[in-house]
């Protein structure tokens, strides 16, 4: 596979695999309980506390590990919600065309016209903030790009002769959409999923930073940043560590996404 010749994408893949493994194994790797006050506050990084301690005296390394669980899970589940929704709407839009297409695409336009961060904030303020609500809200506000993409693929594929062949043997519309067209539209959807996950992780961080996302004491990279605000100069490691983790994760997702895109577009 060509993607393995793409060093940057390979690097991104390695980072993501490493972080995922760390996140899964967090309970075994983490030296301390992430929510427990175990030490005096804002200790600089040392052998005992690799990333130092935060304003309440909690071990930042342990919190970063557990935060990875939350941030990666929220990113992944949100993007899956968005991709499923976007794929279904885009598929019907592209396959049926006409009135169905117009209605769905105008709905997409309306959703896109909302500044989505405000939409997310408004919904989050109205709901009780919880990790599940964060995932649902991010998912429900980020499916439009996928819908447009899938619609485009369906418009292209539905004209191909094997779709007519499927109709000629008597396949139902649903079977043609999900069995015949969708598998052939999967590659760009996978690219969109990867890039979308980067966006979802950023949105989760922003929400948690504003206190509307994952609620303390559960650590997420976003709310660790929020805690760090007041200690930007006194304890810079408190902000640098989660900030760097978000940065490197999002960057890795973009690297992998772009690598996949290249591979899909030049088979």
């Amino acid at each position: 596979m060509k993607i393995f010749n793409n060093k940057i994408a390979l690097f991104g893949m390695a980072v993501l695999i490493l972080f995922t493994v760390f996140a899964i194994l967090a309970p075994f790797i983490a030296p301390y309980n992430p929510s427990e006050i175990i030490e005096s506050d804002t200790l600089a990084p040392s052998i005992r506390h690799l990333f130092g301690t935060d304003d309440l005296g909690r071990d930042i390394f342990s919190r970063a590990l557990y935060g990875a669980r939350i941030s990666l899970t929220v990113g992944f589940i949100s993007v899956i919600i968005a991709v499923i929704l976007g794929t279904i709407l885009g598929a019907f839009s592209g396959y049926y065309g006409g009135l169905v297409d117009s209605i769905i695409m105008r709905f997409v336009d309306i959703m896109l016209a909302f500044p989505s961060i405000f939409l997310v904030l408004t919904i989050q303020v109205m709901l009780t903030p919880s990790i599940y609500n964060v995932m649902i809200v991010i998912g429900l506000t980020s499916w439009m790009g996928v819908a447009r993409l899938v619609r485009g693929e369906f418009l292209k594929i539905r004209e191909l002769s094997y779709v007519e062949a499927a109709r000629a043997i008597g396949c139902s519309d649903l079977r043609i959409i999900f069995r015949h067209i969708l598998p052939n539209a999967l590659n760009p959807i996978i690219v969109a999923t990867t890039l979308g996950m980067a966006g979802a992780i950023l949105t989760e961080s922003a929400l948690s930073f504003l206190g509307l996302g994952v609620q303390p004491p559960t650590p997420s990279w976003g709310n660790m940043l929020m805690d760090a605000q007041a200690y930007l100069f006194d304890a810079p490691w408190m902000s640098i560590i989660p900030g760097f983790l978000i940065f490197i994760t999002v960057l890795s997702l973009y690297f992998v996404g772009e690598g996949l895109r290249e591979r899909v577009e030049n088979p």
Partner: protein
Amino acid sequence: MLKIKNINKNFGRLEVLKGISFEIKRGESLGLLGESGAGKSTLARIILGLIPKDSGDIFLNGQPVDYSIRDIRKIFQIIFQDPYTSLNPKIKIGEAIGEPILIHKILPKNKIRQKVEELLSLVRLSKEHYNRYPHELSGGERQRVGIARALSVGPSFLILDEPVSSLDLSVQIELLDLLKRLKDELGLTYLLIAHDLAVIKYICDRVIVIEKGEIVEDDKVDKVLTSPSDAYTKKLIEAGLG
């Protein structure tokens, strides 16, 4: 068996079919000859019910054909022109051939594989092709898959839409022989669409020539070959055989 009466079809302002009428008897092989753009494929798709007609009637054994019934697909089937694009690249050969049997619930699921293997051998492919993907097959092999797939529902009427025009000459003859044999073995009725009279002559007894959506000739193949009554047909014959 099949009676086509006064079929008209326009695409926007373009008149594609202008009052097409003809009849096909059971067991007959009728050739449909014409240049590209003459309306042959449109006619085929109308007979299959893949696109609606503007006006006219289609009768099957004296009854008007109701295309809203899915079972009509078990009677009318089609072999497509391009075996490279008419098979889904993500679906294995065995599943592609078994799919019509599955969706029409002709056989219980556990009997389908056996039936597919019978169909494979009917079109002279081996059992090993069952788990292959279309891209692993040659053009001729793919067209055999297309034929097996069409035959899986046990149709009595097959439309062959330029079935060999995208294949090599040696493979063309092999396939035409196969189609001839299948017709005799299974008692099929063919409507063979081609732009090449030699292909039609190989399989059909009778030929219809259409030009710009109108029938200009309807006679025995031999007669059309030796003494065509229409100037357009003469031109086609000269272009094809000269």
